[in-house]
């Protein structure tokens, strides 16, 4: 796990995956284990883990040529413009509205900062997706406040999936009063836009003692029937809160039956899974399926199994340091190459 805490900012470059091309994270830091040339077996299961900035940035996604790519971070309008006619959208995650503890006493301010960043993008996104943990405690006032804040977004739509903080007390009931995407009273849904098939999944309802969460049979059956109507050449983007691969079982950072969902998705030429939950950026590429977790807009969490930390609780940083840990991330397409440059740097240096 790279995580040089002495370097205030880091530059990564990412070579994006398509059907013939394995993603690699070519680190400028040649000492990184991820810098090795290990990209030639497309079926090789390889966890590409790259701890980027902590929180505070929204990820901009664009779809061009059928392959979604992280385009850039929302920072001072510096983001590389998307190709003409490309579908561009933004991912935010883990806003935890209602959280007031020391790790971030002003989560509302962090969200507003992200909203301002989104508005500053050179190309307005078609919509925004939120990959869960909108609220901290599933309380109606938290959902209500979040919805009011989201209405400040000058985009057509906000698509959400629930996190476990959104379903902690009464399952989907409270969440759906504010965020029922299609009025069907389910946490899962799909829609098509810009030639892409989007799927929102819920993996926060089936926690059983001693195991990771799961999607459940009903949702897997729905996914199968939903995908039955989609041609395999259609790019698919899947939204779900908890990672759809096992990041760290000891902390429950994974989905027990994700393999069943991925088996349904594997026939498709381009599948991008966007997750939240772990408040940091990790990536995994498996064949045509690329899975990415996102930064939080609330507080940092430790890296999986981080030394000296036994549990995945909010990381407190000394007063005045939070802004330095609230990172902005910029990803830009390098012309002529299927490579993205990522620049992660703190909001305050």
């Amino acid at each position, binding site marked *: 796990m790279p995580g040089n805490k002495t370097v205030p900012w880091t530059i990564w470059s990412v070579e994006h995956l398509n059907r013939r091309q394995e993603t690699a994270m070519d680190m400028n830091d040649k000492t990184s284990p991820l810098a090795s040339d290990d990209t030639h077996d497309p079926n090789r299961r390889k966890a590409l883990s790259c701890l980027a900035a902590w929180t505070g940035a929204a990820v901009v996604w664009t779809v061009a040529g059928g392959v979604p790519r992280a385009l850039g971070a929302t920072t001072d309008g510096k983001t590389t413009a998307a190709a003409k006619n490309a579908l561009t959208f933004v991912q935010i995650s883990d806003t935890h509205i209602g959280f007031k503890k020391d790790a971030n006493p002003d989560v509302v301010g962090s969200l507003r900062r992200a909203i301002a960043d989104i508005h500053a993008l050179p190309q307005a996104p078609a919509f925004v997706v939120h990959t869960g943990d909108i609220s901290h405690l599933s309380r109606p006032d938290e959902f209500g406040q979040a919805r009011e804040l989201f209405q400040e977004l000058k985009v057509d739509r906000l698509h959400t999936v629930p996190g476990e*903080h959104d379903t*902690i007390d009464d399952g989907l009931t409270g969440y759906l009063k504010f965020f029922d995407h299609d009025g069907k009273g389910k946490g899962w849904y799909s829609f098509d836009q810009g030639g892409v098939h989007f799927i929102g999944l819920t993996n926060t309802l089936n*926690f059983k*003692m*001693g195991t990771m969460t799961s999607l459940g049979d009903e949702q897997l059956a729905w996914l199968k029937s939903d995908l039955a109507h989609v041609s395999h050449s259609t790019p698919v983007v899947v939204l779900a809160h908890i990672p759809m691969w096992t990041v760290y079982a000891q902390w429950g950072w994974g989905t027990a039956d994700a393999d069943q969902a991925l088996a349904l998705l594997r026939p498709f030429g381009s599948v991008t899974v966007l997750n939240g939950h772990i408040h940091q950026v990790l990536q995994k590429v498996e064949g045509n399926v690329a899975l990415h977790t996102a930064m939080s807009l609330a507080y940092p969490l430790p890296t999986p199994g981080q030394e000296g930390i*036994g549990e*995945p609780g*909010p990381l407190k940083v000394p007063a005045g340091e939070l802004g330095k840990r609230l990172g902005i991330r910029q990803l830009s397409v390098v012309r002529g190459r299927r490579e993205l440059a990522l620049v992660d740097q703190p909001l305050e240096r």
Partner: protein
Amino acid sequence: MYELFTRLATTRTRAAAVLAAVFAIAFAAPAIFAGAAPAPTVDITKFAFAPKEITIAPGTKVVWTNHDEIPHTVTATDKAFDSKALDTSDRYEHTFSTEGDYAYFCSVHPFMTGIVHVRKQ
């Protein structure tokens, strides 16, 4: 003579033991029957129940307190009891009336587990 001394010593020892027992009953028993004994507590801290395992008598109330900054729940595996989301410093209490073993976990962090043994004592 020696034998007498020994018997005397034994008698004294017994007497002391009886006295101790009387004192123990005199002070401890009313506290139990009056319900003044503090309820057993389980701390939720650093994503763990502490103690993870407790044994109590039927009719005993157990109190859980969340000390983490992240909400947790106290949820029986068979859902026989289930707390709301416990924010920091929130408490949940449940009285166990019948004997048995009650396994529970946190419904959003299912690797956090605990068990309450209810036994006649």
